[in-house]
């Protein structure tokens, strides 16, 4: 009896209205949260742009060495250093990462070795970047005697990029259907012919995308470079690689994020302006690299639809 009573009094319309309202409310909360995160990104960029505008628009900022006088200080040695270090990092990431990815995906199978390597790479991906810096300091700088050089920095950032490149390589190879391989084998191709004639060309776009994304993360890495002892005050450029390759590798260096960090830590406000300008340059670089990666990914998706 009581149940019937309650059912009669139950207002289904206002109940469903409430449910719909809560549903809508959560959708709005979610949208606001998403918007908030994007606003944060926007705020960071605008803050840097406004704070650093005086120096960003000043062409001398890109052409001068660091200096005691904030108005004269520039990022010449920093962006040249970043260029060298990143070239090294990309070199090592390609040399070590792509073969490792190919091995795991094409040759590894489900064997014990490949399982160990796989688990190991996912562990490496989660190691804090400053620990890579300690590795570089203890092994490359002091035990291998590479010094606080471009070579050490390139190697360090290359190792940091390694897990991302391996995963990207594996994923883009995995997308190639088995039938392609079987067709190649059926025509008498060996494994490496299949690899070089089919697998690599088809996966190149995806691998490149992963490589650029990894590089866009590595270019802003500061902690490992500070740990290996990158200098902050470098008023010369490393020798050009076509003149003195070894000298270039052994040259001390500074890089954009290091230079920026140095300027932030100074008490004078004028240096903060420089820091903001350097930060904006870094942000633009990271943005450009991400855009290229985004465009490439889109292209690749279009090109190969199995």
């Amino acid at each position, binding site marked *: 009896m009581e149940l019937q009573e309650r059912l009669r009094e139950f207002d289904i319309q206002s109940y469903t209205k409430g*449910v719909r309202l*809560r*549903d809508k409310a*959560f*959708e709005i909360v*979610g949208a606001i*949260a*998403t918007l*908030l*995160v*994007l606003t944060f*990104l926007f*705020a*960071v960029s605008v803050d840097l742009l406004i704070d650093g505008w005086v120096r960003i628009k000043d062409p001398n900022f890109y052409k001068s060495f660091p200096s005691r006088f904030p108005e004269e200080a520039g990022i010449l040695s920093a962006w040249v250093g970043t260029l060298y270090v990143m070239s090294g990092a990309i070199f090592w990431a390609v040399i*070590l990462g792509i*073969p*490792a990815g*190919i*091995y*795991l995906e094409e*040759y590894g199978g489900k064997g014990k*070795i490949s399982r160990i*390597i796989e688990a*190991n*790479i*996912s*562990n490496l991906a*989660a*190691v804090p970047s*400053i*620990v*890579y*810096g*300690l*590795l570089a300091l203890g092994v490359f700088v*002091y*035990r291998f005697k590479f010094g606080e050089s471009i070579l050490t920095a390139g190697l360090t950032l290359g190792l940091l990029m390694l897990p991302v490149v391996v995963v990207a390589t594996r994923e883009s190879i995995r997308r190639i259907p088995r039938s392609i391989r079987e067709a190649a084998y059926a025509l008498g191709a*060996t*494994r*490496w*012919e299949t690899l070089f004639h089919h697998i690599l060309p088809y996966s190149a776009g995806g691998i490149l995308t992963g490589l650029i*994304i990894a590089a866009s993360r590595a*270019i*802003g*890495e*500061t*902690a490992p470079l*500070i740990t*290996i*002892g990158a200098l902050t005050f470098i008023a010369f450029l490393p020798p050009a690689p076509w003149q003195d390759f070894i000298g270039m590798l052994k040259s001390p260096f500074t890089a954009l*994020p290091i230079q*920026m*960090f140095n300027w*932030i830590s100074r008490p004078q406000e004028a240096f903060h302006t420089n820091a*903001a300008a350097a*930060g904006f340059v*870094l942000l633009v670089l*990271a*943005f450009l690299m*991400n855009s290229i990666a985004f465009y490439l990914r889109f292209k690749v998706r279009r090109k190969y639809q199995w």
Partner: protein
Amino acid sequence: MTLSLGTKKAIDVGIYIFLMFMGAVSILVTAAIIWVLLVDTINFFTHPDGGGFPSSLIRFFTEREWTPTFYDKKIGIWPLINGTFMIAGISVLVAIPLGLAVAIYLSEYASWKVRESVKPWLDFLEAVPTVVYGYFALLFITPFLQKFFSLFGIEMEGMNALSPGIVIGVMILPFMASMVEDSLKGVPQYLREASYSLGASKLRTALFVVLPAAKSGILSAYLLGFSRAIGETMVVAVAAGMYPQITANPLEPVQTITGYIVQVALGDLPFNSFEYLSIFAVGMVLFIITLIFNSIAVYLKSKTVGY
């Protein structure tokens, strides 16, 4: 170019060995990390400046101050642990609710168009250099919070744990949100449809059907995010101060493990000096902490129920 079958086979074997060797390099890297941390940690604990083994190890865990760079050397790790976990804790307080809301919104509510236009920006947010976030924490968030707190008559120091905590929270958010979204996506559509067919709303379905089904993946994402926050360096080096202390007040300056490593590395360190070795000892602690969190995360992920 035609090669004989024998040459082809030889190339095949050669390339196989080359690829396997390159794959094994990653193991070499891990081994080198562990080796260098271990060796220099042992050297740290046997160094005369720390009192030698085993008293240095006891001091490491019992002293309440961290001053290995001073004349009077105290080597208690707890102030650094305190700073590290406080900042990481603040950051997950920001990232967990926001990240969950973003992930549920993107996975369950947002239209395809919204999702496709938001995700690249979230990806880009992951690529923003951390030193830039440090600048933002120090010169934007901190002054803003100082003004906010002064409304209530609370004084906040220029270096503090709160502002880097918040910024790191937003920093790890895209990473966490995309992992959570992946595990929500992994929940099969028929579970949602079953729930809808029983008359449940989208919200109810998301909270009581999809979330529980994806819970191990979500927890794993949180742990990985937390481990990232612990290892984050530049934001804390810039904005958290260099004052290792045991405190529960987020408005005071603290120092994290990573912040200490940066502080020491900025100076000129003689190889194998006590200060030099100390960053490897704390680096070892950092490595172990993150390894524990990552292993739990991987374990949880492997427990994800397949539908």
